[in-house]
């Protein structure tokens, strides 16, 4: 196997870990940030697979705009969730 393939396997394992962290995190805002991190790792994956078009779109949409929309929604729904990290039952 080439170096690139090892890199891709390591990236995939890292993405799995981050995805599990996003599901298991107690605070909603932490889950949103983990989701953003997952998108960022997916960008690296797409770039390694020679798909720059998809990588650009994922970088802008996945880790930028969607995270912002989640944070704005949290701000609108429950202000403590973002600013003070309050517990969400």
């Amino acid at each position, binding site marked *: 196997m080439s170096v690139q393939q090892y890199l891709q396997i390591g990236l995939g394992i890292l993405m799995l870990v981050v995805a599990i962290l996003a599901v298991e995190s107690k605070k909603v805002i932490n889950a949103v940030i983990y989701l953003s991190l997952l998108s960022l790792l997916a960008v690296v994956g797409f770039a390694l697979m020679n798909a*720059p*078009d998809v990588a*650009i*779109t994922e970088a*802008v*949409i996945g880790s*930028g*705009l969607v995270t*912002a*929309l989640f944070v*704005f*929604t949290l*701000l*609108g729904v429950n*202000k403590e969730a973002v*600013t003070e990290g309050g517990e969400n039952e």
Partner: protein
Amino acid sequence: MKKITAIILVSLLFVLLVMNMFDSDINFNKMDQSEVDGQYYTENPTSANMVTSVVVDYRSFDTLGEVTVLFVSSLGVAFILGGLSSRIKFKQSQSFILKVGTDMLFGMIILLGAYMFIHGHLTPGGGFPGGALIGAAFLLKYIGDDSYRAKISAFKALEGTMGSIYVLIGIIGILVGNYFLENLLDIGTLGNLVSGGLIPIIYVLIGLKVGSELTGIFDYFVNEEV
């Protein structure tokens, strides 16, 4: 008057699509015929970026569907959040450095987005990422300034105009050529800035449409109940 215009346009589009499906001379299924397959795409690219020549030329009808999906989602956001009018106030006030920094980055990101959809037929990128970058630039303005509001009515007009022109270009393809969104213009030399026929025009339209749509979505999201 608006309703009558809309009814006339929709029925015209319907008649044209039905004509396409049943008339054997004007074949709607031309892209699915056996001589036009993956091999054909790679051997006859219509732009220097081969992904673009498939997405915007050979399979442009699919792109119309994607643009419609984004339009419907923006419509849904406007429908649900349209009644909220006061702007969200962040608990932490923006510092001077953040304001100046976002103002500086704003122009650069807009420029990168415009570059991306103008050069969509030459380099990776295209209408959708370019438009999303423009939306991200306006998001940055919203974060950097508590009282900033984009001129949403102007963006709405831009969005509607660009979408209509895109569909009109497609209908012209049916009327003059053979199928929806046919590339009627001269393709020219691959790799030049002015090449690929209709592809740069369609990408500029899609880029402006996506950018204004995403900006509208953000404007609705930063509102809250009074």
